[in-house]
């Protein structure tokens, strides 16, 4: 049986140490800060693109195109009367991001049905930004050109953006960040709690006393688990109130899954503390084995369904993928456990947790090496 008194004593000691060393501030500050920073920071959308238009045509149609750009909030347009070369120089100096050149006789040729070219120059030194600007600009131009040429297209694409109708970046990114935050923060804390004793030598109290391994593990891991359980609610509030991410699923499912995920993370910390001997090593090691998979296999950057071969295999090894699937479902889709895949992933997480906790407890040594 677990000795409640031992666990209680450990809890008390660790908690007062955390408060005294002010580490408790970091426990609550870091996850929120990471969420807010990345939530605001990773933007796929771009506003106020500095646009220059050189209009050689000066016809009614060309002015229509210009006004389409002027009325879009994505572009901050300026019509310039300068030679092309000078405009490209400006782009070189990073003063404009987009240059559109409307050729001479644009209107005439268009009405005659002759082919005309519109030149688009984009500063792609930030590649993804360049890609986005390209999509915006081509979209506006094609739409205008279609209307102007009065030719109907045989097919109209009628698209529906499922789960995220307005294509908000926040909706797409913030739920994915939870998988990183709850993987990294509890693991670091639990690893530190054990390794700190190793570094200071107080771990010998544990080696030489009749405390059993299981009591030690429970005593050490309960505190990070409890503290980060509070974070589950804090982060939820940030996501729904600050970032206004819709929550369509079941809160209970969100909560219980997150608790299990925090337990997994805490046990990863236990595994790290078996290997690491100093605090710095513990921190670096935890970050390496949690942050990179947390980002790569979270589905934020690349959807799991797009992965192939090695990447797909690795994604299935780490817990992030399973957790994020359920979390995205809870926030944006709302199927809950009525979908077998969610239920299956939930059990995967539970068995994951049991596996690494048992492994960690078995590998933990209660003697001098």
């Amino acid at each position, binding site marked *: 049986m677990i000795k409640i008194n031992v666990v209680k004593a450990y809890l008390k000691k660790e908690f007062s140490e955390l408060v005294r*060393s002010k580490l408790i501030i*970091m426990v609550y500050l870091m996850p929120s*800060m990471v969420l807010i920073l990345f939530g605001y920071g990773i*933007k796929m959308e*771009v506003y*106020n*693109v500095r646009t220059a238009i050189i209009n050689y045509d000066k016809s009614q149609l060309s002015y229509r195109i210009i006004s389409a750009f002027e009325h879009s909030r994505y572009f*901050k347009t300026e019509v310039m009367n300068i030679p092309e070369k000078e405009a*490209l120089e400006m*782009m*070189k*100096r*990073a003063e404009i991001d987009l240059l559109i050149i409307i050729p001479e006789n644009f209107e005439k*040729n268009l009405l005659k049905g002759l*082919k*005309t070219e*519109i*030149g*688009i*120059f*984009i500063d*792609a*030194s*930030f*590649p*993804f*930004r*360049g890609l986005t600007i390209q999509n915006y*600009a*081509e*979209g506006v*131009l094609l739409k205008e*050109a279609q209307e102007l040429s009065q*030719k*109907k297209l*045989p*097919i*109209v*694409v*009628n*698209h*529906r*953006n*499922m*789960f*995220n109708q307005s*294509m908000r970046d926040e909706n797409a990114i913030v739920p994915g960040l939870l998988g990183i935050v709850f993987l990294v923060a509890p693991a670091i804390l639990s690893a530190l709690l054990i390794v700190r004793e190793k570094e200071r030598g107080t771990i010998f109290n544990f080696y030489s006393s009749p405390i059993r391994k299981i009591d030690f593990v429970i005593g050490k891991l309960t505190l990070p688990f409890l503290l980060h359980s509070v974070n589950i609610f804090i982060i939820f509030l940030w996501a729904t109130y600050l970032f206004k991410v819709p929550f369509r699923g079941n809160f209970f499912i969100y909560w219980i899954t997150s608790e299990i995920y925090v337990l997994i993370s805490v046990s990863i910390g236990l595994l790290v503390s078996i290997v690491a001997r100093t605090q710095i090593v513990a921190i*670096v090691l935890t970050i390496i084995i949690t942050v*990179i998979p947390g980002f*790569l296999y979270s*589905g934020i*950057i*690349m959807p*799991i*369904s*797009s992965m192939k071969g090695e990447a797909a295999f690795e994604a299935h090894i780490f817990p992030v993928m399973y957790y994020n*699937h359920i979390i*995205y479902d809870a926030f944006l*889709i709302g*199927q809950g456990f009525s979908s077998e895949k969610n239920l299956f992933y939930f059990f995967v997480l539970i068995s994951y947790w049991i596996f690494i906790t048992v492994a960690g407890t078995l590998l933990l040594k209660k003697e001098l090496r």
Partner: protein
Amino acid sequence: MKAFLTVFLKELIMFFRSWGLVAVVLYSFTVDVYIAGKGFEVKPRNVSVGYVDFTDGVISGKILSHLHSPEFQEPVRFLSEEELKKALFNRNIMVGIVFDSDFEKDFFEKKAKLNVMLDATAAAQGYVTLAYLQNIVLRFGEENFPVELKTHKLFNQNSDTPKFLSLAEFLSILTLITVILSSVVFVKERESGTWDIMLLMPVNSKIIILAKSFSQIVVVMIGTIICVGIVLFGIFKLPMNGSFMAFLVLTLIYSFSISGIGLFIASVAKNMLQVAQLSVIIMMPIIFLSGSWTPIYSMHPVLQELSLLSPLRYYIEGCESLFFRGTSVFDLWIDFVALLVLGVALYMFGFRKIGKLF
């Protein structure tokens, strides 16, 4: 001058003696930059597509044949809309296309509708997929559509993300390492109490401070040359359209102003743990306001003003211009001056705060 050299050499020797630190710095400047550059791909790849086809499959087949690798996976056929939706809800596929039974008839009457359902939880892929589909449809319908768009993406034609990301990672590593190294140099002495002895010496405290941080700047510059030479140029084949000397000078000024931040942290922090916490808290806004994530012109006007205080902003602008845009040095003078001003201001503060015994 002799005092400067002595302190400078002492710090260099101390740095190279702690081989653990050397290993960490080397690792960050090489392997870490390599992983970041290789590991992330923002462009859509292998987007999974599913479709339901109620037509004879002539035109729908033609449309689907345009969805090929590397952007798309082989489209998967579903038998009913329900099944397609289920797969979409379970996130097994990202794009669902439905061809109605009247699709072909409508096509010849020019009023066909292509129903596309996008899993917009992956917004980036969603955007691009949609644009792609629209382009296919456009080209499909009219061979003689009168307007052609000639798009030139300057400075990085293929939107090559590894090139950009490896550079971006190098910038953040450089920033982080400089801040931590230059603050640890002071805090270590403070922790062990030798800092007071340093100040008691009959040497101008400004010289000691400058020598100490200059030694760390040299370390960082060595790291920079290794990283840029081996990883950026050697592996990622980054172009160098500007002048390499200008880049080195800019890096030197930048590490000077960033070590000013390290000095600031050192003057506030009492031990290593606080250094770690403070550097994270100070670095995050600096990176956030630098324009590497959100372009500065898309920020809130107040944030745009605040971003003038972030040294990283000038450095990123300078590096992007030198590596990709090939801007001449004289057009970048403002970045050089701004970095210098920020650095001098930070050092003035540091001299006052940490350079006095009482």
